[in-house]
């Protein structure tokens, strides 16, 4: 479970968010550009420091301003996918997916076995030697997903993962995300503007406006209850 309670003064407003995401839950975060969605993901990932508050993941404190705890991003084991997928342009698809395992010092035979399995699972066999500039937007997202999943993350953060996808890739990526979150039973925060994503992926949708959560009510449950 992910428990977030953070605040930080941004340029135009104060970001102040209290949020809990359960294991296996796919929390959808929406909001206008500049509302603080990506900033929140960056704080959870450890790429930006909140001024106040705490972030606790599965009982482990990642950040606590009072206790002066701030676990560096490389020790948080969070699968974070950026809007642009950020596929390392000098590395092949295989090398991209293996990157996290290499950084963690995993031996080559084990690494290769794991990466090969992921490539097969993601149907990227044909593209395994390609570089970023030879991939479509959807293929890049799949590689980014594979790269994030490879490190066996305890949390997934996805920033607009559907933005660059065409109609063929969209259901594939969406289904894969759902599958990973459910089968691995990990919390996931997904930032998106797509209304349909919110409908079909969702357990809960939160709208963030000028740094504050505006709809913290579980919409899905509310709809069922009413």
């Amino acid at each position, binding site marked *: 479970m992910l428990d977030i309670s953070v605040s930080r003064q941004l340029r135009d407003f104060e970001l102040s968010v209290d949020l809990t995401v359960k294991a296996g839950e796919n929390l959808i975060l929406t909001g206008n550009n500049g509302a603080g969605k990506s900033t929140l993901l*960056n704080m959870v*990932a*450890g*790429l930006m420091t909140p001024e106040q508050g705490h972030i606790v993941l599965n009982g482990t404190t990642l950040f606590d301003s009072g206790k002066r705890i701030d676990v*560096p*991003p*490389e*020790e*948080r*084991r*969070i*699968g*974070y*996918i*950026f*809007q*642009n997928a*950020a596929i*390392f*342009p*000098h590395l092949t698809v295989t090398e991209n997916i293996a*990157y*996290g395992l*290499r*950084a*963690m010092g995993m031996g080559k035979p084990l690494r290769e076995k794991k990466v090969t399995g992921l490539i097969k699972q993601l149907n990227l066999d044909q593209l395994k030697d390609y570089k970023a500039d030879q991939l479509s937007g959807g293929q890049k997202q799949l590689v*980014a997903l594979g*790269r*994030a999943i490879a*490190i066996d993350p305890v949390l997934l953060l996805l920033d607009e993962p559907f933005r660059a996808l065409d109609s063929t890739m969209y259901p594939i990526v969406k289904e894969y995300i759902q599958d990973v979150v459910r089968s691995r039973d990990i919390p996931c925060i997904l930032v998106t503007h797509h209304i349909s994503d919110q409908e079909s992926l969702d357990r809960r949708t939160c709208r963030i406006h000028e740094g504050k959560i505006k709809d913290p009510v579980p919409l899905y449950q509310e709809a069922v209850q009413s």
Partner: protein
Amino acid sequence: MATHFRISKSLALVVAVTSIGLVVAYLALPIIALFFHTNPEQFISSLTEPKVIDAIVLSLITSTIAMGVIVLVGTPAAYFHSRMDYPGKSIVDILIDLPLVLPPAVAGLALLLLYGRMGLIGQYLHIFGIDIGFTIIAVIMAQIFVASPFYLRQAKALFRQLDPSYEQTARSLGASPLFVFATIVLPLTFEGLLSGLVMTFARALGEFGATIMVAGNLPGVTQTMPLAIYGAMQGDFNTAITISILLVLISFGIMAIISILTKRRGLIA
């Protein structure tokens, strides 16, 4: 209409040929003149003179050390400068560029007033028996001062252009900052950094004004190739021409390397 088009097209051709011809002639003729005043025998015989060899060796050693210092200190400095916001950053930007427009003689005098025997720091170093002025260290310091902007500017621009999401993704995948730098930042900027480095080496190799002020012109001690040209102009004209030709050849080679690197970078981008 067609005639008008033909006239403007031929006019453009005339202007193009004339202007490009003028540029090429103006830049190439002095270089050609250098080669006209010598012959292969003279060139070889001057090249084997001890003072010429000394100047070449000294130039290569000092320029290489200067380049090494600039890379070791300049790479992290440029990286953090481009990735961080701090008070006075724009002043640091100006300071980095300053040696490009500062007359080398001013740079030399400034270095002398800092590290010379009576200088701000030099007077204290002198107490401990350390004298920097008019030594090989002074040569290297002058070269670092005038050549550093060529590397720093390039490195700053490359790091600034690099999308931070690559580094952030790498960190979140479990890579330490050093691992990220070695496996992401460096490979993605390597060719650009290398071309900046080659320019830095070229500038250090050709450094004259600051060196003569702070290090003097002592054969075998501080006399680099440009200083040796200056020294030889007093009587040994052939030696001056030989060293000049050598510097032209090195400079040409360096520019060719940069051109290849830039083209390769263009292809990758």
